[in-house]
């Protein structure tokens, strides 16, 4: 018998899709049964109370969570988010319901043994409810009480070698795609770069001194599987300098039907025979491809790395060999308003593991210095860029303007001459000028 009646939540269960309500009910029952004989450190009916509170919120059309708190683990200004409920008498199990963010391993590579350990710890000292993974990538522990925080942190760091993630006005847990571990398109080792920067920027991750949140995301190729271009303040997207590698025999294989396009994806229905002109050449956004006399040709200078042709014919086309990454800045994906895509700042930089990625760090740190000094409270980098202009960003990073910085000619002419860049400055001899130009 459920502790609280939840008719509105029950409606969610009746739909065709799996519902989180099913999961919560199942877990609430298992927690009550406690077959594993766990000595729960927070109320056993925490999940029932959570469902009861959610039902009340649905009925009232308002939240019953209070905002924020001072709870945390010693020395860390992030990773724990204080949550309190404003109906503690009715729902004592969730009177304190703090969130903990656990930094995900690079590329989200971990063993089932690791998840078991995490879950065992969380069942023992928390609600047992998790969010795998949050939108920034963290493993999110949902709901525990203040005395459990240091205990959990100790176990995570000392037994599991696992750190907390970022929250608040910090560098958020950096997140990357699976990269060269599994993906042939990856142009650099996303996991190594993500892991290295996570370690090197521990201070920025745990001790808040930024105007607002700051996100790094690493994509191995322009397919952008972690969508860095849409949501990271700095996105690192793998790319190449030279030409797309073409295997003409394999192209013929696709044309003849020997190989399935898109590596067999979308094969659930009959799309007819593969038509290279219709499905690849005509869809190239810069029209830089042609297919004549059984040969595929690409004008690489015009290629914008959209990846479509490579995705359709992965056996025939591969990224070039001179690989590196592009740095884009200023993206954000707020829930309500003001979503913004990243703007290209560095078209190409080599990814140099040997020197600890110094060229990349130089760009990051110059941007931070500017944003920390000039950014208003709760202003994302993308907003500061809009307020002070892209030219200012080029100035503070010491990057020279290049055509790739211009989104559309004559549309955003943000690059202006300065007096010291113009011969003779702004001063001119008006008398001399009037000799040749009438009023």
């Amino acid at each position, binding site marked *: 018998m459920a502790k609280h009646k939840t008719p509105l939540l029950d409606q969610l269960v009746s739909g065709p899709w799996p519902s989180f309500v099913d999961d919560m009910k199942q877990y609430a029952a298992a927690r009550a049964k406690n077959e594993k004989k766990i000595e729960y450190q927070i109320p056993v009916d925490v999940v029932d109370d959570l469902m009861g509170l959610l039902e009340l919120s649905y009925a009232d059309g308002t939240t019953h969570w209070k905002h924020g708190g001072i709870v945390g683990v010693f020395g860390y200004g992030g990773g724990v988010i204080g949550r309190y409920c404003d109906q503690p008498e009715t729902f004592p199990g969730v009177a304190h319901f703090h969130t903990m963010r656990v930094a995900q391993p690079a590329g989200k590579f971990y063993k089932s043994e690791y998840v078991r350990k995490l879950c065992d710890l969380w069942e023992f000292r928390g609600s047992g409810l998790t969010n795998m993974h949050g939108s920034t990538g963290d493993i999110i522990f949902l709901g525990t009480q203040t005395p459990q925080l240091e205990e959990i942190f100790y176990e995570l760091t000392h037994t599991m070698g696992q750190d907390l993630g970022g929250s*608040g006005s910090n560098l958020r847990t950096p997140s990357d795609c699976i990269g060269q571990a599994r993906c042939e398109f990856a142009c650099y080792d996303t996991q190594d770069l993500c892991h290295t920067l996570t370690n090197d920027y521990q201070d920025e991750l745990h001790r808040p001194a930024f105007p607002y949140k700051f996100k790094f995301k690493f994509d191995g190729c322009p397919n952008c599987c972690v969508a860095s271009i849409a949501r990271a303040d700095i996105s690192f997207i793998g790319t190449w300098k030279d030409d797309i590698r073409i295997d003409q025999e394999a192209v013929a294989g696709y044309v003849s039907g020997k190989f399935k396009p898109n590596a067999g994806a979308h094969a659930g229905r009959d799309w007819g025979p593969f038509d290279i002109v219709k499905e690849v050449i005509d869809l190239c956004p810069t029209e830089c491809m042609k297919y004549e006399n059984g040969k595929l040709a690409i004008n690489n200078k015009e290629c914008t790395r959209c990846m479509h042709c490579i995705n359709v014919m992965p056996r025939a086309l591969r990224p070039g060999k001179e690989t590196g990454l592009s740095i884009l800045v200023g993206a954000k994906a707020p829930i309500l308003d003001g979503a913004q895509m990243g703007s290209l700042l560095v078209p190409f930089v080599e990814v140099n593991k040997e020197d600890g990625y110094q060229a990349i760090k130089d760009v990051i740190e110059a941007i931070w210095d500017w944003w920390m000094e000039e950014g208003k*409270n709760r202003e994302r980098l993308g907003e500061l860029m809009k307020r002070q202009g892209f030219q200012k960003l080029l100035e503070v990073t010491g990057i020279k303007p290049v055509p790739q910085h211009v989104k559309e000619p004559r549309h955003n002419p943000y690059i202006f001459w300065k007096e010291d860049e113009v011969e003779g400055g702004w001063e001119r001899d008006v008398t001399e000028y009037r000799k040749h130009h009438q009023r």
Partner: protein
Amino acid sequence: MEYEEAKQKLIDGLTKKTKSKSKFYFSDLADILEMKPRDAKKIVNQMVTDGILEFWSSGSTSMYGLKGMGKQAAAEHEA
């Protein structure tokens, strides 16, 4: 500026303002200290370690307060 001097300056600055509020943005602290953010961060972090300042977080935004000012962890859940 020496740590002790900076510490006192920040405590004085925050104490003056605590009549109207108990939590401050990092930029408010840097303004009181009249330091660049990176230098101010070193002082502020040391003061957190020493138990003079404490963090407050909404989840999305972080703020700082003098320890003991405003609502405390044990009473945070009270209205």
